[in-house]
C-alpha cells in the first residue's frame, strides 16, 4: 500500500526534537518547528502583533507626502497600541494595484477619467504579526494629479487564517463601503466641476469685458502686449471650459460603463436604494434636492504651486452623507468580524444547520432566520444598510446612484451667455436615483408592514382554545432588526423560509388528517402525555415529509456571517433575569397583562445569561432534575415566591427547558400576582406566581392545591418542590448538581446540545411511521401502542418516565408540523394517578 520509494531519511533527533550539534545539521532557518502551535497553546495568539484587537485602517497615497494613515476604526489609540501605522500604510500602499491610465491619452485633446475597478489584496507582515485585507480604491479630485487620489481601506488582524477564511465576506462588506464612498465622491466631483465651470465662465465673461475695454482703449489696428496677453488668457480659459465640460460629461456617464467586476456589485446595491429617501425623516434627506446657491469666483491666471495647495480631506472628497454612511458601514464591518474566528465560524455553522431542521427548531431553538443570536457585542452591518437606524445602529447609508448622475447638463451646452442658474443644485435626487420597485422594498422598511411587539394581549376565556402555541404571528424587535437577512448581504431571508415552511406545512395527506382527529379529543396532547404517561393520547402520525419545499434543500450553506442584533430595549440589570419585557401583572389586570418574552424573543446573549441561572439552580437544588423533568414532559411548573426578582430569575433560568416556548415566549409567564385560572395553566407551562400574605394570597394557594394533580409547584421561599417522582436517566446529564461545569455560558452550550439531542429523538419518534400506523389490517391500536412502547424501551433504552418526555416532545413536533386543527375542541386536562412528592433541600 505504501510506496517504498518514499522512504525517507530521518536524522537522529533527541526527544525534544533538537538536532544534535552536527556541523551538517540543518540550520533552524531552513527547518520547520516540531510543534506548529506556539507553546502548544491553541489559544495563544498566532503572532506577536502589537495591537490588541482587529481594526480598520484607511490610508492614502498622498501625492505630497506619500503613503499616510488617515484614520482607524475604532478610533481608539489603545487598539493600535505601538503598531506603526505609518510603516504599515507604506507597505500596503506601495504598489498601484489599479494600474491604469489616467491623464491625457495619446491622441486625445482632453484629459480622460479612468474608471478603475477596486483591487483586493491580502498581505501580511509576519515580523509585525499583522495581516490585512486591503481594498484599494480611487477617488476623484479636481485638484489632484491626474484627477485621482488612491486610497485603501484595510482590515488588519493578527490572524491570517481569519482573513482568508472570510475573504468573500470581507470583500463584500468593503465593496459596499467603497461603492458608497465612491458614489459620494463622484457627486462631489461633479459638483466641484460645475462650480469650476461657473467660475471659468464668469472669468471668461470678465476677461472678455476687460479685453474689449483694452481693445477700445488701444489705437485701432494696434494690439498692445496687454491685449495679446488678455487674449491668450481668454483662450486658456476657454480651453479649460471645454476640458471641464468633457470631464463633467465623463463623470456623468459613469454608471453606463461596462463592468469588469464579475460580482456586479452595483446590481446588489440597487436594493439598498430604499434605505434613505429624500422625503425621509432625516434632515439630510430633505436637503437632498435642495439646490445650493453658489457665487462664481474669478479665477486667477496662475494657480498655486503643487506643494502649496491643500489637498482635500477624505470627508471633503465625498458628500458628507455618503462619507458618514461609509464610516458607519466600516464600523459595522469591524464589529462583525472582530472576535475569535473559532466562535464566529461555529455560529455560522450552527445557524446553517438549524436552517435545515425547521421541523424541530421551535422546540428549543431560536429561529435561525431571525435571531441569529450571539453575544450582542457584534453588530449587523446588513441592518445598517436596510433597517431602521434607531438605537445603537448606525444610520442608513445614502442610496447608491445607479443611473447616470442627474447633472445639470445644461452646463454641457455650447458656451453661451453666463447663466446664473447653471451653478445651483446639480444633483436632483428625483432624477438621479431610480424609483425603487416594490420588489426592492423589503417589508421591514415599510412603516405599514413593520411589525412591532405588542405588550397587550386580549383576555382568553377559560374554555377557549389556547392560541399561544405557535399561532402568535406578531413580530418583535428582533424580527424587525433581523430582517437584515433579507438584504442582499444575506439573501436567504426569513420571509422566504417562512413562506417555504408554510407551503411545506400546508401539504397534508390523508393519514395526517386522520391523525389530526386525535387532537379533537385529546386537546392538549402535552398535558395528556405528561399525566397519563404512555397511556396518554394516541400518538399522531406524520406521513408527510418535513421540509418538502425544494427551496429549503440548499439551505445548508454557510453564508456570510451574520452579526447579532443588539438587545434593543433591554436594560443591563433587567437582562439578567431574562424577563425584562414582562410587565408585572397585577391582580386586576393580569388577564390583559403583557405576555412574557422568553424563547424566541430574547437574544442568545440573554439565553446564555439564563444558562448561568440554570447552572446555579442545578447546583443549588438537588431536586432540579425533577423540575426539569416536569417541564420537559409537559407538566406545568409554578414557581411560587414572594420576592419578585428571585422568582423572575428562577423562571428565566428554567425557561430554557420549556419545550416550544413560542415565538415570543408565550408559554412562560414570569410573574403573576393573581390566581391563575385553568386556562392559564393550559396556556403557560412555566409560571412565576406571587405569594401574597393577604386572604387573596391564601386563596391562590388553595387553588394551586386544587390543581396539584395537574401541575408542580416549586416554592422559591421554602425551597421545596412538589411533583411526581422522576427515576429516569435521560435528563441526568443536564441536572447533575456535582457537575464541574463552571460557567453559565458553557452550561448553556451543554444544555443546548442535550436538548438538541432530545429534539432529534423526538423527530425520530414523530416521523417513524410504523410506530404510529397499523402494519396489517388486523392490527389494533393496542398493538401499535405496544410497538411504540417497545421502541422507546428497547430501541432507545428509555424507561416509562423518559418515554413520557419523548412522547410529549414528539407530540409537539407533530402538532407543530400539522398546524393547529381548524375546529379543535377546547383543551382538556388529563392526569395520572402517580402521587406527588415533596422534595426539600
Amino acid at each position, binding site marked *: 500500500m505504501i510506496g517504498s520509494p518514499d*522512504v525517507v531519511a530521518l*536524522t*537522529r533527533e533527541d526527544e525534544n526534537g533538537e538536532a544534535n550539534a552536527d556541523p551538517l545539521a540543518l540550520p533552524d532557518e531552513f*527547518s520547520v518547528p516540531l510543534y506548529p502551535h506556539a507553546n502548544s497553546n491553541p*489559544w495563544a495568539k498566532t503572532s506577536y502583533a502589537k495591537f490588541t484587537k482587529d481594526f480598520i485602517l484607511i490610508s492614502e497615497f498622498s501625492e505630497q507626502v506619500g503613503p499616510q494613515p488617515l484614520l482607524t476604526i475604532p478610533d481608539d489609540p489603545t487598539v493600535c497600541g505601538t503598531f506603526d501605522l505609518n510603516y504599515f500604510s507604506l507597505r500596503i500602499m506601495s504598489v498601484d494595484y489599479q494600474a491604469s491610465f489616467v491623464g491625457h491619452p495619446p491622441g486625445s485633446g482632453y484629459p480622460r477619467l479612468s474608471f478603475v475597478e477596486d483591487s483586493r489584496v491580502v498581505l501580511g507582515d509576519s515580523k509585525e504579526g499583522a495581516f490585512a485585507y486591503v481594498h484599494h480604491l480611487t477617488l476623484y479630485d479636481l485638484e489632484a494629479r491626474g484627477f485621482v487620489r488612491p486610497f485603501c481601506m484595510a482590515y488588519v488582524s493578527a490572524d491570517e487564517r481569519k482573513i*482568508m477564511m472570510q475573504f468573500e465576506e470581507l470583500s463584500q462588506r468593503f465593496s459596499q463601503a467603497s461603492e458608497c464612498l465612491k458614489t459620494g465622491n463622484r457627486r462631489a466631483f461633479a459638483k466641484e466641476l460645475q462650480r469650476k465651470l461657473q467660475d471659468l465662465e464668469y472669468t471668461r465673461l470678465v476677461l472678455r469685458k476687460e479685453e474689449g475695454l483694452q481693445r477700445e482703449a488701444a489705437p485701432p489696428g494696434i494690439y498692445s502686449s496687454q491685449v495679446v496677453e488678455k487674449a491668450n488668457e481668454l483662450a486658456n480659459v476657454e480651453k479649460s471650459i471645454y476640458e471641464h465640460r468633457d470631464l463633467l460629461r465623463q463623470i456623468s456617464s459613469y454608471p453606463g460603463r461596462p463592468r469588469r467586476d464579475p460580482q456586479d456589485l452595483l446590481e446588489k446595491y440597487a436594493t439598498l436604494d430604499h434605505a434613505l429617501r429624500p422625503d425621509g425623516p432625516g434632515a439630510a434627506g430633505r436637503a437632498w434636492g435642495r439646490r445650493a446657491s453658489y457665487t462664481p469666483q474669478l479665477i486667477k491666471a496662475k494657480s498655486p504651486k503643487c506643494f502649496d495647495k491643500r489637498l482635500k480631506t477624505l470627508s471633503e472628497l465625498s458628500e458628507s452623507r455618503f462619507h458618514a454612511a461609509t464610516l458607519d458601514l466600516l464600523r459595522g464591518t469591524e464589529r462583525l468580524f472582530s472576535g475569535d474566528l*473559532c466562535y464566529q465560524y461555529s455560529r455560522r455553522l*450552527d445557524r446553517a444547520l438549524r436552517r435545515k431542521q425547521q421541523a424541530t427548531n421551535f422546540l428549543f431553538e431560536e429561529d435561525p432566520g431571525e435571531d441569529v443570536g450571539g453575544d450582542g457585542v457584534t453588530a449587523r452591518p446588513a441592518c445598517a444598510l436596510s433597517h431602521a437606524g434607531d438605537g445603537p445602529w448606525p444610520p442608513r447609508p445614502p442610496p447608491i446612484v445607479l443611473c447616470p448622475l442627474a447633472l445639470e447638463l445644461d452646463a454641457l451646452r455650447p458656451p453661451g451667455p453666463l447663466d446664473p442658474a447653471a451653478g445651483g443644485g446639480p444633483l436632483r435626487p428625483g432624477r438621479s436615483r431610480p424609483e425603487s420597485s416594490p420588489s426592492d422594498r423589503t417589508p421591514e422598511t415599510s412603516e405599514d408592514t413593520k411589525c412591532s411587539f405588542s405588550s397587550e394581549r386580549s383576555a382568553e376565556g377559560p374554555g377557549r382554545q389556547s392560541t399561544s402555541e405557535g399561532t402568535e404571528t406578531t413580530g418583535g424587535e428582533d424580527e424587525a432588526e433581523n430582517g437584515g437577512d433579507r438584504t442582499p448581504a444575506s439573501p436567504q431571508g426569513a420571509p422566504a423560509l417562512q413562506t417555504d415552511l408554510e407551503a411545506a406545512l400546508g401539504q397534508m395527506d390523508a393519514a395526517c388528517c386522520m391523525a389530526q382527529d386525535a387532537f379533537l379529543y385529546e386537546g392538549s396532547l402535552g398535558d395528556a402525555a405528561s399525566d397519563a404517561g404512555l397511556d396518554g393520547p394516541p400518538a399522531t402520525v406524520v406521513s408527510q415529509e418535513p*421540509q418538502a419545499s425544494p427551496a429549503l434543500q440548499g439551505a445548508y450553506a454557510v453564508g456570510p456571517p451574520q452579526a447579532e442584533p443588539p438587545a434593543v430595549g433591554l436594560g443591563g440589570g433587567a437582562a439578567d433575569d431574562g424577563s425584562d419585557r414582562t410587565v408585572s401583572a397585577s391582580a386586576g389586570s393580569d388577564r390583559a397583562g403583557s405576555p412574557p418574552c422568553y424563547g424566541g424573543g430574547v437574544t442568545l446573549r440573554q439565553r446564555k445569561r439564563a444558562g448561568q441561572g440554570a447552572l446555579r439552580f442545578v447546583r443549588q437544588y438537588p431536586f432540579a432534575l425533577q423540575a426539569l423533568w416536569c417541564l420537559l414532559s409537559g407538566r406545568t411548573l409554578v414557581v411560587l415566591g414572594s420576592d419578585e426578582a428571585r422568582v423572575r430569575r428562577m423562571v428565566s433560568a428554567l425557561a430554557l427547558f420549556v419545550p416550544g416556548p413560542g415565538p415570543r415566549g408565550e408559554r412562560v409567564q414570569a410573574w403573576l400576582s393573581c390566581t391563575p385560572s385553568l386556562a392559564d395553566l393550559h396556556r403557560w407551562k412555566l409560571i412565576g406566581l406571587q405569594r401574597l400574605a393577604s386572604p387573596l394570597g391564601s386563596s391562590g394557594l388553595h387553588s394551586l392545591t386544587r390543581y396539584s394533580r395537574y401541575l408542580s409547584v416549586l416554592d422559591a421561599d421554602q425551597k421545596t418542590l412538589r411533583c411526581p417522582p422522576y427515576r429516569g436517566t435521560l435528563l441526568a446529564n443536564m441536572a447533575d448538581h456535582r457537575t464541574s*461545569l463552571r460557567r453559565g455560558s458553557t452550561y448553556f452550550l451543554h444544555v443546548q446540545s442535550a436538548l438538541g439531542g432530545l429534539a432529534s429523538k423526538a423527530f425520530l419518534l414523530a416521523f417513524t411511521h410504523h410506530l404510529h400506523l397499523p402494519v396489517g389490517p388486523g392490527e389494533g391500536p393496542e398493538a401499535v401502542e405496544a410497538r411504540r412502547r417497545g421502541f422507546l424501551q428497547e430501541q432507545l433504552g428509555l424507561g416509562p418516565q423518559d418515554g413520557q418526555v419523548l412522547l410529549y416532545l414528539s407530540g409537539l413536533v407533530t402538532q407543530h408540523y400539522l398546524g393547529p386543527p381548524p375546529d379543535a375542541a377546547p383543551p382538556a386536562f388529563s392526569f395520572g394517578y402517580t402521587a406527588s412528592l415533596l422534595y426539600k433541600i
Partner: protein
Amino acid sequence: MSSGYPPQSPAVAKTEVPLDGECPLLAATFAYWDNILGPRVRHIWAPRVDQSLLLSDGEITFLANHTLNGEILRSAECGAVDVKFFVLAEKGVIIVSLIFDGELKGDKNTCALSIILPQTELAFYLPLHAICVERFQHVIRKGRIWMQKGYNIISVLSSEILPIMELLASMKTHRVQEDIDIRDTVLNDDDIGDSCHEDFLHKAISSHLQTCGCSMVVGSNPDKVNKMVRTLCLFLTPSERKCSRLCKADSSFKYETGLFVQGLLKDSTGSFVLPFRQVLYSPYPTTHIDVDINTVKQMPPCQEHTYNQRRYMRSELSALWRAVSEDDIAPDMIIHTDEGFTPDLNIFQDVMHRDTLVKSFIDEVFMLKPSLSLRSTYVTQFLLLIHRKALTLLKYIEDETQKGKKPFRSLRSLKADLDLAVDGDLSIVMALAEKLRAGLHSFVFGVPCYTSAQDRDVHMSF
C-alpha cells in the same frame, strides 16, 4: 487582458505543462527581486490545453513583477514564507504569491512563487487555497535549501507546481458538489445492509469523523466508491465538500494531500499504491476505506499525526541539506535511510475506539422512510449535535485552563460532565473541536507518548 505589456526578457524560461481537460490555472511563475533591475521573472509554467494559452508571456511577466512590488520593504524573519493574495479586477485575474528569501548568485534575494488564475475562478479556488499554500510552502522550504547550495530551484518547484495544476484540473471535473442529494448516498438505502454491511458503514463514518473528516475511499467499482465518498461528505461542511473529490471512472487519480475525502480507483491488479510522504503530509490523519473488502483503517490521532508529520518534514529537509550534489537527491524522490529512525510504514491501523454517537445514529436513521427529506433532516440534526458537543468541549477546556494558560488536568471530569465516557465519542468530538481550534489534541493529550485518551486516563489516574 489588454496588450501593450513589455516583452518578456529572453532569459525567462518556460515550461508548458500538458494537461487533460480544463485547467483553471493560467500560469505559475517564479520571480525574484534583482538588486539592480528590480523584479524579474525567472521561470514560467503554463498549462498547455486545447485552446491557445490565455495569457501572453508579457502579461504573465507584468503580473508576476507586480507581486514583488513593495517587497523591497520586506522585513520578515529569515526563512519566513509570506502569502499574498491579489484579486485584480482591473486585470481580471487572481494571483497567489508566496514571498520568501533565497540565495541567488551569492546574493540574498526576495523571491516569489506565484500562481495566476482568472478572476472567474475565485469561488472555485478559495476553498482550495489552504491546500495549495500548504503544499507550496513546503516545496519552498526545500527550494530554499537548494538555492542555498547553489542548485537550480526550478526543478524543485516543478515537483509541486505540476501536481497542483493536475489537482486543480481534476477538481474542476470531479469535485464533490456543495449540496449532496442523500439519494446518491448509502443513507438512502431501504435497509442498512443493502449496499454495505452495517458494521462497515458504522466503522467508516465513525472513523471518518474521528480523523477530522479526512478519508480516502478505494475500490474497483467507481460507482460504489463514489457512493461512499458522497456518504462521507454528508458529514462535512459545504466548504470541506468543495475540497473533496470523486473518483474517475476510467482511470485513477493520484492521491492528493490535503483533500478531505477522495475516491481512488484500484488498478487492474486490484491494488492502489499510496505515496507515504503525501499521506503523512495531510493536515489531518486519514481514514482508509476499502469498499471492495469492507475494511476501515485509520491513522493515529491528531497529536501523533502532527508529530510524525513534523519529524518527517524535518528529516526530509535534513536529507536535502546533507546532499552533496544536485544529482545526489532528486527533490521529489528521496530514497535514503538513516540509521537513526525508520518510519513506521504501517501508519494505517484498525479503528480502536468504538463509539455510541454514530452507532445510534446509524441504527436510527434507517428507521425513517427513505427518498424523503426525513433522513437529510436527521443527518443535519446529528451534525448539529456533534458540532455543539465539540463547541461545548472546547469551551469546557477553555474555562478549565483559562484559555490555555494552565495545563488541562480534568479529562475524566470532562468525560463525565459532557457525557463523553466512550472513547470513540470523545475522539469524534475532539476531532471536530480540533478543526475549530488547531492544536487542541496536543494541548489536551500532551506529547505524543500519550497515544490515546485511554492512555491519558491511565496516566491521570496515577
